[in-house]
């Protein structure tokens, strides 16, 4: 070997050793932006918007709910509790909701929060031109009045028991009446436990503690840095080396890897989100309820869960919210029954089999393609041919939005209130009914009844009937609900994971 070549290889080796030795294994985040005892959260992407009314991306919602306040909030068990509204009361006829606002609350810019801001926020949310994603949740609101600085009165078209829960999402954040969308996309100005510190596009977003936060739980950490590490396995590596202290995963495989090292604790929380085979009951063979029921009977949901998601989750019925959870054993075929499936197909006059064109998204979430393949294999045994179209996520969304499918393998977002989850899908005038592919006068009646009933104990049986109707007609095939995995390093205390995947309890989290 020429001596020059040897020297070159030697230099390369020396360089690598020198660089490696520059960092001791237990070195703290020397070059990181987070000051001492700040919390670093690993995220795969930075927020795609900082305007709360248009945020649907998981990462954006997680950041924004720490910056903004809402009239109501969810506690750790997803009960609706006071937020910026200290209390609320519905009139006897349910056509008026009076909210008493919390006093002494200020925005990040120091201005005072009052009823003027609530009125302006709600009116802008209802305006179509704002293009707010939660506009439909205010469909029952006719007008908003602010009789004094601490009182807001909502005139409703009729009773709306779901409204307090709907007001708790960050898409309904209360903004200062002086702020514009343009300003807020660069400089958030909310009443939340944190304020925006520093943002480096595509790299990190740092929040600083809001020392004037009104809540009883004052933020513990001086800063929270959302550090963008695009690859989930790389986040695990960053946690192992102590650079990141908290991360939320949805891929069971990544969660297992994280836990296997022994230095990271992973908490499993059942999700409100549910995995489903959406059927379009207005398309092709699926117009016949017997074909849909045949599909329902030919699927062993546990097998889908075991093969696609390592058994990480629970078989579920339509409603996943803890207070209204459906009992999956009450569906027409609680276990796989191929004879019954054949019977339904015969009733539909399709004993020879049917073909169902099914769209699947690749990359939207980790288990989609595996679920689809297992469903295809199982249904083939019942002479139901699931013709899979595996699509890039943009193409999937396009087809889904246009309801251009017989069936779709999907992971849908659940909400703490069943009306919020399904009212928009399965009422005949719901804004997602075209995609849901099913509605009926009975369901319309049940949803209206559920909305008009404020007592939770009385609402439960109504939504049990909703779930039963959906399953009896096999509107969709509900499969399972997975877990959210919250990974923390040993020096993190006080974080409470929620079924909604929310990071609102960053405010109670401390780092030792």
């Amino acid at each position, binding site marked *: 070997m020429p001596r020059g070549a040897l020297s070159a290889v030697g230099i390369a080796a020396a360089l690598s050793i020198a660089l490696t030795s520059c960092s001791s294994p237990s070195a703290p*985040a020397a070059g990181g932006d987070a000051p001492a005892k700040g919390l670093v959260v690993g995220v795969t992407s930075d927020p795609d918007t900082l305007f709360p009314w248009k945020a649907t991306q998981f990462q954006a919602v997680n950041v924004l709910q720490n910056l903004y306040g809402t009239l109501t909030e969810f506690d750790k068990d997803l009960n609706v509790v006071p937020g910026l509204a200290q209390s609320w009361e519905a009139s006897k006829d349910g056509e008026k909701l009076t909210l008493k606002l919390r006093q002494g609350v200020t925005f990040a810019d120091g201005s005072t929060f009052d009823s003027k801001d609530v009125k302006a926020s709600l009116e802008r949310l209802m305006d179509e031109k704002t293009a707010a994603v939660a506009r439909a949740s205010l469909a029952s609101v006719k007008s908003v009045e602010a009789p004094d600085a601490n009182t807001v009165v909502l005139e409703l078209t009729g009773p709306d028991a779901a409204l307090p829960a709907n007001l708790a999402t960050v898409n309904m954040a209360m903004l200062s009446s002086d702020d514009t969308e343009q300003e807020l996309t660069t400089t958030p100005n909310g009443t939340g436990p944190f304020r925006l510190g520093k943002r480096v596009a595509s790299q990190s977003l740092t929040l600083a503690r809001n020392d004037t936060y009104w809540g009883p739980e004052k933020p513990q950490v001086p800063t929270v840095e959302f550090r963008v590490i695009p690859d989930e396995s*790389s986040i695990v590596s960053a946690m192992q080396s102590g650079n990141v202290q908290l991360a939320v995963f949805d891929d069971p495989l990544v969660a297992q890897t994280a836990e296997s090292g022994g230095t990271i604790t992973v908490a499993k929380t059942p999700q409100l989100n549910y995995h489903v085979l959406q059927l379009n009951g207005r398309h092709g063979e699926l117009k016949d309820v017997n074909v849909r029921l045949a599909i329902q009977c030919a699927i062993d949901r546990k097998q889908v869960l075991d093969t696609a998601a390592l058994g990480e989750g629970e078989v579920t019925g339509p409603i996943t919210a803890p207070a209204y959870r459906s009992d999956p054993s009450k569906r027409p075929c609680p276990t796989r029954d191929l004879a019954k499936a054949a019977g339904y197909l015969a009733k539909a006059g399709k004993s020879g089999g049917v073909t169902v064109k099914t769209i699947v998204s690749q990359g939207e979430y980790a288990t989609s393609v595996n679920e689809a393949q297992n469903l295809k294999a199982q249904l083939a045994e019942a002479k139901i041919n699931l013709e899979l179209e595996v699509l890039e996520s943009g193409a999937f*969304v396009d087809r889904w939005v246009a309801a251009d499918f017989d069936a779709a393998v999907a992971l849908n977002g659940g909400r703490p209130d069943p009306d919020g989850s399904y009212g928009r899908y399965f009422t005949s005038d719901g804004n997602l009914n075209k995609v849901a592919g099913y509605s009926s006068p009975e369901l319309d009646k049940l949803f209206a009844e559920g909305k008009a009933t404020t007592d939770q104990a009385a609402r439960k049986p109504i939504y049990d009937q909703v779930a039963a109707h959906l399953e009896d007609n096999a509107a969709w095939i509900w499969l399972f609900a997975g877990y959210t995995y919250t990974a923390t390093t040993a020096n993190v205390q006080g974080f409470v994971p929620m079924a909604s995947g929310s990071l609102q309890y960053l405010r109670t989290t401390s780092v030792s």
Partner: protein
Amino acid sequence: MRRIAGNRAVRRVASTLGTLFGVAVFVFVMLRAIPGNQITAGLGTEAAALTPAQKQALEQYYGLDQPLVTQFFAWLGNMVTGNFGYSARSQQSVLDLTLHALPVTFELAVFSIVLALLVGVPLGMLSASRANAPRDAIGQVVSLAGLSIPAFLLATTLLSIFAASFGFNPNGQGFATLVEDPLLNLQQMFLPALVLGFGIAAPILRTTRTAVLEVRSHDFVRTARAKGVPERRLQVRHVLGNALVPIVTMTGLQFGYLLGGAVVVEQIFSVPGIGRQVLLGIQQKEYAVVQSTVLVIALAFVVVNLLTDALYRIIDPRVRAS
């Protein structure tokens, strides 16, 4: 003579501009061919809940209500005046984003190429020094490994091993530029450059081996050896010196590719380079981000090619003479 050179320069500039225009049209059309737009990319399936008026408001906001031809020439016109567009996601101009990302990618490309040359050229010479002997087999195995091991596999394996076993993971910290924190920056560049360099070393090694073998068979090498030129000087000055043109070509080509951004490696090691910028732009359907960045990449590629051509003139007197 000067006129011929002048004509050649004009032709070169014209062909460069033509290439860039072609790239601009191609990227513009391809982006529109991808299903979805900025609205569906941002809202996902929630886009189904938009009322027609809401949809119209959003289309207006993102400029999607304009005819495609208007969109194209408005963007191209702005590019010419230095306005690369605006990223709604990061709330920054694309020019600013590119000015941050391009030096990072350039630095990574330089380190990768240096590592690749340090491995590829000596090993290529070693292989060629006795073709089909055991030492040649070493080179062949290294080049086969470099070509066959996917970058994502090598990257995640190295990252996991270094982080889990040695607690060494500088890439888990916030990215530091060479100016902000040179030591941390070099640590953060080390593993990505190693992965990329290993992959690029393979074609450089193979090119070196072939070129050196070819040059060694020439008469002037035999003559030099007969005249008593020391072996080391013979190998470096006479053989390697004459084998440089294909090696430089291959290196220039690889460098050009690296300037386009090594998306996978940048993703895994959280390096905020140009590849990640394009990827995020595509994911969010931020047309201006993708179009402008790709045009900058194309320009960089053209410049690297020009520089490679210029290098031929320095290393090969025959090119100079012609």
